[in-house]
């Protein structure tokens, strides 16, 4: 009946007691404020990370949800994890059906078909470029060019011949080396070039088969390929934007490389490392102080050949002249060697003083004359893929441009994804539409003849049995090579390079992104999606962006787990300590409690008094701690936290995290702290309630 008044009295007692025992309150308050501060700060940081990550990932690759085969052996991982490529997430054989069905769900705006597979690309060899040019020159009948290019082939062959000793030293097959030597001898002979004039195609094939592999110096690049509907991809993922080149036109085959891959993997090593060093120095690293960076600079300088090899003799001469002049402006003594190799090495061996000028010179004078990128924008590239059962598939596809996801520009993980049209992707993955299969069969018949003539190339040249190895791929099934690389050199090229855009949404996909109209209705959408899948028996599972992002999402969950465990442990210890302090405080107040009990206070009143006291203390500390944490978060929110590592770029949804604090973080923090305070005072309150009223009579004090 007068409960309100009693409660008021309890509150008054609580405040007054807290004030009366200032030291104790301050100590416990300090622990509680610290606890709230940590919980709120780290909670806010993590939620901010989750928020930015969700924003950047949903708007780049995952969409709000991803669906894939319910019986998949592995989990979908949009970002590469620790295993290379071969994840098996099952298939969506008939995407059109899935799309039609899922679009019936209220909140679904779009269903974007996707598939991820690994394609390998051989970085271009110098010899490949030369032979390709030579072939074109022969085809177009440019005899002057044929001469010049033929001469370059001979120079290359000469240099390979010089390396045959080293090759022989490690080879298990001296006969093979001998045969290679013979082939080179042949190419270096006058007779070969005489024959070349009469039957250039056969000679070119011989060069392709015997010299090109010997001169191979290209790299094998593993590229992560996302097959999708490029137009839809661009439209639905706000984070997607084009950097170089142009968008893949509708209904055209094509590939968009990620800018990150383009700059960090495909670019000439020399230029790429030079970029890195320049970048570091611009960020304030002093070359003179950083031995690791110095080491890197020395390594770049040793890579000078990567530049020289790319320069034609004329370009070389021009660069040498300009370098000589440039060196003068840099006060390099005339006595230094002035051959181009030495000068390029000098150019690359930068220090804090000359890095700006040297970098500028490199990009102004040398870079325009090089193939800076092994797979340049605007050119076609041969991609090879492995089907699940290990067959090799090759496709030739044009690199239309490069793209980035906004916010994730500097992330290697996000930058690993290259986008291509799903039609080409299906071929790479080893799946073709029925139409294509039929078309391919008919084409195969027509080229079969030419294939044979290719195998007979040596016979024609040597007039004897084919002893030399031609088949570069001993056991692997090779038919797809025709489907991809060789065929499209013909007239069918144009026809094969375009397709009916509708086919993108028909047939195979591996997974699909679900884009919602209203992201706030996520929870309902999820149940609706599940119901729809169930209803139409699509056999799919739905995962959110976090799960779909693979190991990255896993890391986030682990971080949350570690945070919660840490908080738990901290609070456990704090609990014990606070409990301890409170028990001592209780013992001190025994006479007071005894008096109250004697004059008629029930046990619950005494208990309530203690609990309320801690409740108040917890609340006050919680508020103070939250304010402190909010202040720090606001400060961090204005300056931003730089991402310390690559994976952090994804977490932060950019190079810097600008954390924000939400009411939820604060409520959670204060709630937790109040809970802990009350919990920690249960035992002391119990002890207090057990104080016998007699103690009031025991005199003293």
């Amino acid at each position, binding site marked *: 009946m007068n409960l309100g008044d009693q409660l008021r009295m309890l509150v008054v007692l609580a405040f007054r007691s807290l004030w009366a025992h200032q030291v*104790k309150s301050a*100590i416990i308050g*300090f*622990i509680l404020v*610290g606890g709230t501060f*940590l919980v709120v700060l780290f909670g806010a940081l993590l939620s901010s990370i989750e928020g930015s990550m969700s924003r950047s990932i949903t708007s780049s690759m995952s969409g709000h949800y991803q669906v894939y085969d319910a019986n998949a052996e592995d989990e979908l991982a949009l970002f590469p*994890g*620790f*295993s*290379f490529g*071969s994840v*098996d997430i099952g298939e969506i054989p008939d995407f059109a059906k899935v799309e039609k069905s899922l679009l019936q769900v209220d909140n679904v705006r779009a269903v974007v078909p996707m598939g991820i597979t690994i394609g*390998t690309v051989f970085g271009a060899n110098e010899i490949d470029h030369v032979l390709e040019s030579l072939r074109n020159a022969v085809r177009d009948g440019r005899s002057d060019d044929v001469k010049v290019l033929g001469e370059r082939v001979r120079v290359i062959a000469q240099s*390979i011949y010089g*390396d045959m000793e*080293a*090759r022989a*030293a*490690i*080879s*298990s097959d001296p006969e*093979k080396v001998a045969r290679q030597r013979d082939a080179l001898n042949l190419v270096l002979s006058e007779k070969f070039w005489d024959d070349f004039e009469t039957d250039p195609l056969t000679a070119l094939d011989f060069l392709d088969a015997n010299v*090109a*592999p010997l001169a*191979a*110096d*290209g*790299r*094998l690049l593993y590229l992560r390929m996302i097959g999708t509907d490029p137009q839809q991809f661009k439209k639905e993922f706000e984070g997607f934007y084009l950097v170089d080149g142009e968008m893949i036109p509708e209904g055209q085959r094509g590939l968009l490389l990620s800018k990150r891959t383009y700059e960090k993997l495909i670019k000439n090593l*020399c230029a790429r490392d030079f970029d890195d060093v320049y970048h570091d120095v611009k960020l304030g690293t002093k070359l003179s102080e950083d031995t690791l960076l110095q*080491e890197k600079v020395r*390594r770049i300088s*040793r*890579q*000078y*050949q*990567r530049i020289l090899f790319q320069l034609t003799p004329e370009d070389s001469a021009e660069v040498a002249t300009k370098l000589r002049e440039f060196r003068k402006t840099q006060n390099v003594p005339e006595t230094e060697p002035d051959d181009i190799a030495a000068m390029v090495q000098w150019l690359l061996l930068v220090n804090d003083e000359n890095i700006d000028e040297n970098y500028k010179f490199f990009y102004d004078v040398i870079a325009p004359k090089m193939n800076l990128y092994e797979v340049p924008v605007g050119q076609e590239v041969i991609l090879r893929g*492995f089907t*699940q*059962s*290990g067959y*090799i598939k090759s496709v030739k596809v044009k690199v239309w441009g490069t793209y980035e996801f906004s916010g994730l520009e500097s992330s290697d993980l996000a930058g690993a994804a290259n986008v291509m049209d799903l039609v080409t992707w299906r071929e790479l993955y080893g799946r073709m539409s029925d139409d294509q299969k039929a078309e391919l069969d008919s084409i195969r018949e027509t080229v079969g003849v030419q294939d044979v003539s290719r195998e007979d190339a040596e016979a024609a040249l040597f007039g004897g049995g084919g002893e030399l190895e031609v088949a*570069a791929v001993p*056991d*692997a099934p090779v038919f797809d090579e025709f489907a991809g690389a060789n065929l499209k050199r013909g007239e069918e090229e144009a026809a094969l390079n375009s397709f009916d855009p509708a086919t993108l949404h028909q047939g195979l996909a591996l997974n699909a992104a679900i884009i919602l109209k209203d992201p706030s209705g996520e929870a309902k959408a999820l149940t609706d999606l599940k119901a729809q899948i169930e209803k139409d028996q699509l056999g799919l599972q739905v995962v959110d962006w976090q799960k779909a992002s693979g*190991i990255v999402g*896993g*890391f986030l969950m*682990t971080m949350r*787990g*570690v945070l919660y465990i*840490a908080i738990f442990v*901290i609070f*456990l*210890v704090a609990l*014990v*300590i606070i*409990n*301890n302090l409170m028990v*001592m405080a209780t013992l001190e107040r025994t006479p007071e409690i005894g008096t109250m009990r004697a004059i008629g206070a029930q046990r619950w009143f005494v208990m309530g008094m203690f609990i309320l006291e801690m409740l108040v203390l917890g609340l006050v500390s919680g508020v103070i701690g939250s304010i402190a944490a909010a202040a720090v978060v606001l400060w961090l929110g204005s300056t931003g936290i730089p991402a310390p590592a690559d994976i952090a770029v994804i977490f932060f949804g950019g190079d810097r995290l600008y954390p924000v604090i939400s009411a939820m973080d604060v409520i959670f923090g204060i709630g937790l702290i109040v809970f802990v305070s009350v919990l920690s005072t249960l035992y002391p309150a119990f002890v207090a309630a057990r104080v016998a009223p007699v103690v009031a009579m025991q005199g003293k004090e």
Partner: protein
Amino acid sequence: MVLFTIAIRNLVQARRRSALLSLAIGLVTMLLVLMMALSAGINDNLVRSATIMSAGHINVAGFYKPTNAMSLAVVTDVGELRNIVEENTPNLDYTIDRMRGWGKLISDTGTVQTGFSGVDLADESHFLEVIQLAKESDYKDGGRDEIIGDPSQLAGGNTIMLFVNQARRLGVGVGDTLTIQTETVGGYTNTADVTVVAVARDVGLLSGFATYVPKQVLRDLYQLSPDTSGAVWVYLKDIEDADATMKHLRGVFEAKGYRLMDHEAVPFFMKFETVQGEDWTGQKIDITTWKDEVVMLTFVITAFDTVTVFLVSILVLIIAVGIMNSMWNAVRERTREIGTMRAIGMTRTRVLAMFLVEAFVLGLFATTVGATLGAATAFGLNALHINVPNDAVKAILLSDTLRMSVHVQSLFIAVGFLTLCTGLSALWPALRASRLSPVVALGHTE
């Protein structure tokens, strides 16, 4: 010693307070011990997987450039290299040499990308000891609950040993045939058919990328001559010597006229590109330690230790506050007693010592109990062989099972450090107690 007796009596007197404080200190000690054990466990996992799968304690490897623009991770004349190592390495345990390859492993139902380690069983007596085979049921649904297969068949022929994760993915078991497909620079694809002779238990993350074949299989695939190999793996009696011995060996090889690559702390497969662009042909030797070869995994340990330090500092702070407060109370309660003792003729230093000894005794007791419990928990957890469900956690622990590794040394560190913290937190109250003037103290009523 009388101070000691007084301390213990006082602690027993304030039983409840001592017990609660001990509980807190003990908890933190236990936690510290567990965290250190986990960190050491991760480190052990790393060392173990690294030195079984990717490196010796020291590697004498290198690159061979048949042409200016080509680089192979092989060394020639491997016999001579091993001789040099064996003659010039102090505290050497043994050496082996391994071929290295990278490619696809193909079965009827699946493909994995993996590394291939070429072994010569005749030469590697230790290999069969380290490898633990898995039960068939571990990788085959409905498989027998026993170990089948015989790794000693790796001695020759077209054989291969897989790890459980690969066998699962490929859907194969002992006796099945697989195709190895390697790609060489320039687009060659070479293949070889091999028979699975054994399946080993996974050894952490790295076992996703390792398989074992006889050396000859790799030599054939890469068409390399018999005196070539991938790397000489040098095992020392004490892995701690790795850095020093690596420097020593570099000197040795340099003196013998070998061309050496500059030391760079990255795994060999990240060096291909650099080497390829350099202007030399023939052989260069590269000497690295095991850490260099798994450098991308060490961040886990750094991250973990950072969390440990952070967490423990916060906890120590909380505990220090608790101890300080409780010592304050003790001082206040015993003000009269202190006054009496001072009046009788006890020096300030002895009063100070009395309180400090009390704190130290409490700290030592609590930390010892905590450390013992921590160690026991660690052993208990180890014995349970807890399987880690989450991939990310697996990546962090570098293993599929939770592994704690308790070093006696770390127990002493935990006990010593936290006892010291306890003692130091009592310093201020103890100083105050020693400063009390006997007159004031005696006049204190309470």
